[in-house]
């Protein structure tokens, strides 16, 4: 299993470390030529969403990334990644078009400045035990469309969701030792790979 990690800016190494621990092979996407490599999934990490989005466009990655996700490439977006995948943004900032493939409405910097950043331990659908969650100048999801499954809510705000092959969290599972959410993503990718293989055989 090969997972591409968008490595334009932010906390991408942290994702690679956890995914490698879970047995996945990872590689970095820093420019358009990196995108040509074979991959089964993509991670869009935390960082500054305005910076990552701008670099996606300037480095001519945007169209291919969006086309692949719209075509079903499994994607995991944390924090800034969640913002980039959101169809609607309550307080948009960047003049650039977002990926916008997930039917969610998001509020950026929803908890204010760094003094509003917080850590909590909270329930997550299917985990069976509360998970550590670090919110760093985080967004939250204001509302979700049909077909979006809510996976976690903290203080009445949606902070994790899934729509088909797209998984997003407003917090940073890559910053803790807990691997449940990354394992969930790896399972999603495995399922997508085997169903693709099945449909290829059917052709």
């Amino acid at each position, binding site marked *: 299993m090969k997972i591409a990690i968008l490595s334009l*800016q932010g906390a991408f190494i942290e994702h690679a470390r956890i995914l490698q621990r879970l047995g996945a092979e990872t590689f970095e996407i820093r420019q358009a030529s990196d995108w040509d490599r074979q991959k089964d999934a993509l991670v869009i990490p935390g960082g500054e969403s305005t*910076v990552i989005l701008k670099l996606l466009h300037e480095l001519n990655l945007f169209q291919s990334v969006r086309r692949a996700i719209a075509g079903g490439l499994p994607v995991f977006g944390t924090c800034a990644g969640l913002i980039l995948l959101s169809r609607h943004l309550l307080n948009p900032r960047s003049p650039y078009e977002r990926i916008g493939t997930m039917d969610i409405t998001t509020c950026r910097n929803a908890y204010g400045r760094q003094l509003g950043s917080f850590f909590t331990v909270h329930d997550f659908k299917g985990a069976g035990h509360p998970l550590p969650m670090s919110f*760093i100048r985080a967004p939250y999801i204001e509302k979700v469309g049909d077909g979006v499954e809510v996976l976690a809510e903290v203080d009445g705000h949606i902070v994790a969701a899934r729509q088909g092959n797209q998984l997003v969290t407003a917090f940073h599972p890559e910053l803790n030792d807990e691997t449940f959410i990354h394992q969930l993503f790896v399972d999603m990718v495995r399922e997508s790979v085997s169903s693709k293989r099945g449909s290829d055989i059917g052709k």
Partner: protein
Amino acid sequence: MEQSRQELNRNLAQMLKGGVIMDVTTPEQAHIAEEAGACAVMALERIPADIRAAGGVSRMSDPKMIRGIQEAVSIPVMAKCRIGHFAEAQILQAIEIDYIDESEVLSPADDVYHIDKNAFDVPFVCGAKDLGEALRRISEGATMIRTKGEPGTGDIIQAVRHMRMMQSEMRRLTSLQADELYEAAKSLRVPYELVKYVHDNGKLPVVNFAAGGVATPADAALMMQLGAEGVFVGSGIFKSGNPEKRARAIVQAVTNFRDAKMIAELSEDLGEAMVGINESEIAVLMAERGK
């Protein structure tokens, strides 16, 4: 300060990695920096080159000016206080700054004690010339480190010297035997636990940026290849001929710091770089402030 606050503050620095933090003096400049791809801005009244030119005592900026910049952008806003001036730091915390830089660029307020940064909820970044300084600042509560470099000169030599020094001292620590770490802690004048961390992990427990003298995309690529996790650009942008273009080029050079071909293209037609002064020509070595 509770343990988790310290961790959250280290985490914010992790989110800034691979990014460029730019000095700005007005909301307009802050806006240009954000548009150009800065991952954060440093709000200050005068950029280091002008502080150097003006001389005299240099202090924390007017809170009103900082607020203006906070309102102008949505990325994190940092601001500087004087070394040891905890009252200035309290003021910056009161206006909810995202990161305080306890900075040698301003005139030091205390020639013995740094701020007890563990007593604050907002995060601090501090400059360091070597591993001892870096670990002392971390033990005082800094959650991000940067090289001191020599601010306001456009001369990269000090940033290179400081980054190489830190990296080589870290490599040396990783090669020591367990029973040699106590003596290493003594000679570095830092807590044993931090020496042990570096020995086990080969890196600082917090994010480490380059700062001081970065003026070109090549400077940024040089610092990244030497082990920086991101760069601060102070006077280098708004003291140059075409700040917008230069800022954008430096941002891209940091992401693709090993791609010389791309950096060659990015370096074309950037206009005048800041004139700069050589390290050997200046009277005040800011990097010697606060050890």
